[in-house]
């Protein structure tokens, strides 16, 4: 009798765990429409090939560089490990996570997030962390990122966080419970719409322009991690008109780069050279580039990489050709579908947040 009870107990426990697992998948936000950025981080784990270049950073990387252009024009394989308002420690841990799978030749880090020294927002944390596979790196990322009201258990068992979504589930939650569509090409968030740059408020004077100690600590850690793994780290500031990038901030990054023998490119100064026209190449009035802008920027940056880092041209490699042909087809399909959507509705309906 006792044995029977133990067996029933074990079966019940297994069924309970499986049920909770299924419910957790159902309850987690799917990010298939609207804010699709929430899906970017987890898509990396589906990659079938390694990459020469890994971009880490916030929206200034995942919206501004087209990996397909890098491939098409230079044969460079690249991936963007970015998410919305990704903080520097999140970039560091995503890089550490990436190194579990591959060792790229070059890592490109966008420096805008240096302005944040402390955790900012649970919503953005979630978009950066939830998609990561469970590992010590993820746990360290959680610990570094949590705002005071958050709890690590809510990240490790997301059902504890998202349980309240039970009352607001949508058809997408059921549709994508066990498998999601891809929303990016190698982490690139595509937008084909155009909204010319507007006028931005005059930048406010800051009381203190120094980057915080915590942010700088993670920049040091990133530099060290790259050195230890024989990876070349490039610091960039993407060519965005807003938020304002202060000269004082720029000087600090320049000094840091010199001190650590790193390249730093402030692309705001290279807008004309790259050929970006903020009347046509941005979809949100100058905050981010649209597809045409991202392709221009990737083309410029690809040439820079080839020139300065002697990256190998992989075009002609049959296995990579096949992978990138598929990726290019997906990229083109997405581009066409967005163009069609704009023709039909006058705007990109898929990104509307309901």
């Amino acid at each position: 009798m006792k044995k029977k009870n133990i067996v029933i107990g074990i079966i019940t426990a297994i069924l309970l765990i499986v049920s909770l697992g299924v419910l957790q998948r159902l309850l987690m936000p799917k990010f298939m429409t609207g804010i699709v950025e929430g899906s970017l981080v987890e898509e990396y784990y589906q990659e079938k090939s390694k990459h020469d270049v890994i971009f880490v950073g916030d929206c200034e990387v995942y919206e501004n560089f087209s990996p397909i252009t890098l491939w098409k024009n230079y044969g460079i394989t690249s991936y963007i490990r970015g998410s919305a308002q990704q903080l520097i420690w999140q970039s560091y841990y995503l890089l550490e996570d990436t190194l579990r799978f591959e060792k790229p030749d070059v890592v490109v880090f966008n420096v805008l997030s240096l302005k944040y020294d402390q955790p900012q927002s649970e919503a953005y944390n979630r978009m950066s962390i939830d998609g990561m596979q469970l590992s010590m790196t993820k746990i360290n990322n959680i610990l570094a990122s949590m705002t005071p009201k958050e709890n690590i258990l809510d990240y490790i068992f997301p059902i504890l966080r998202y349980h309240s979504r039970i009352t607001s589930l949508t058809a997408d939650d059921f549709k994508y419970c066990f498998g999601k569509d891809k929303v990016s090409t190698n982490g690139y968030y595509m937008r084909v719409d155009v909204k010319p740059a507007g006028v931005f408020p005059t930048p406010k004077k800051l009381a203190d322009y120094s980057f915080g100690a915590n942010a700088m600590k993670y920049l040091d850690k990133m530099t060290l991690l790259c050195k230890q793994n024989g990876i070349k780290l490039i610091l960039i500031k993407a060519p965005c008109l807003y938020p304002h990038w202060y000269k004082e901030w720029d000087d600090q990054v320049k000094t840091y780069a010199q001190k650590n023998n790193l390249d730093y490119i402030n692309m705001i100064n290279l807008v004309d050279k790259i050929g970006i026209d903020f009347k046509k190449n941005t979809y949100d009035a100058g905050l981010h580039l649209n597809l045409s802008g991202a392709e221009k920027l990737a083309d410029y940056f690809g040439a820079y990489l080839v020139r300065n880092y002697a990256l190998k041209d992989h075009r002609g490699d049959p296995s990579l050709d096949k992978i990138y042909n598929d990726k290019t087809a997906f990229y083109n399909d997405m581009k066409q579908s967005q163009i069609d959507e704009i023709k039909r509705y006058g705007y990109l309906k898929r990104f509307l947040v309901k």
Partner: protein
Amino acid sequence: MLFTSYNFIAFITLVFILYYSIPKKWQWPLLLVSSYFFYFVAGKEYLVYIVVTTVSTFLVSLGIEKLRGKQTDYLSENKDTIEKEDKKKYKAGIKKRQWQLLLGCLIINLGILAFVKYSNFSIANINTIFKITGSSYQLSFLNLVLPMGISFYTFQAVGYIIDVYRGKVAAEKNLFKLALFVSFFPQLVQGPISRFSDLAATLYEHHAFNIHVVSFGIQRILWGLFKKLVIADRILVGVNSIIRNSGEFQGAYVLVGMLFYAFELYADFTGGIDITIGIAEVMGIRVKENFIRPYFSKSIKEYWRRWHISMSTWFTDYIFYPISVCQPMLKLSRFSRKHFGDFFGKRIPVYISVFVVWFATGVWHGASWNFIVWGVMNGVVIMISQEFIPLYEKFHKRFDVEGKFYYRAFQVIRTILLMSSLRMFDCYRDVGLTFKMFGNMFINFGNIFEVFNGGFMKLGLTGIDYLILLFGFTALFSVSLIQRKGSVREFFATKPTVLRYSMFGFIIIVILLFGAYGVGFDARQFIYNQF
């Protein structure tokens, strides 16, 4: 550390594992260390109060016991020689010294409680008097933090010392054992107010791991979490919408708010007590029940025998009876009988005692006039009910309704409505507004159609929330119905293992999915913690 927090769950799991892993003689010391750790985490500045209460109670109880021993020794040594008169005198002398010790202890313990809980309330009232009398002088408020559970542990300690004084229990000789009785952590948050005679033995004895007992304890904890997280904290949104927007939600909405609060309070408080009793049970410790389905009561008197039983009996035993039989009251009784006749002679002392008890109950609940008026109103309603008894009897003789289902249902609903309307004093910010909203409920009741025509959706709760609440209340009601016939857990224990384990799994899933916890929900302390 909230009972519903991850930290507490981790804490209690660790205590549980250690409790059954260490030699049994270390079980109660482990509970003491755990209790003090729990208290330390809640606020290290609170520790001094509980330590003072414990040490003073311990020393005084030993003093009282020593005097009792001294009296016994003296009387037995001199039993052949001592005169009756001298014996009486000696006893009176000892009693007086014991009384002085008791009084000192009460002054210390109740003084601490009064100081930390009521100083600022007193200052506010004095300032109001200054203002009314035209004085511009105002006293400054004190920067005091109310120590967690102070009302509960103080009453527990006071109950103990009075019991020692009365000779009902022997004084505990081990300071640390008494410290555990006063600070036992599951009870610290919101009671119940245990008696030494009920708790001590089970608290200090050795407990072997028993799967049946542990399983029952876990079931009780889960049931408590269900009540708190699924029902209380969900309906709270609706309660807050109504009471915080008294200008917008009037008439029938006030009735809805009143009933919502009554059920929130029930689910919150009984849920917390279920967790308390469950935690104790998991460790083999039996804590007395604090509720017996109070919303099934047919009268206010019965309700107070079934709601927060440990508090009601505490006030009865340590305030009502002593006042009723004290010399001045007996004198008053004789005086009243002589001058006003038997009718008033019988009632005046009883009603004075009732008034004092309910005034004290109100004061105990919180430093605010709302609670005091709530307490007094309870007393008034009980006294009126008492006076109505002959009328009821006549009615019952005239109409054969007593015991009939519909009449019992009427009595139960009447009691719920009456108690809920008194609980409105918990909700609104001051006494004036409470009376105003109570009146408004009747004056503007015409908007009842609006309430049922989409009004419920204005309260911050969605249709799904209402469905969850309906499910929750159905579960509560069903369990209460089963409880009338016996223990629910025993009832399920007789069912097939598959069904029992499935129930376990089901309730865990329901709590995890439908509980109002985590980010997006305001982690809420139990309502009674603030008392």
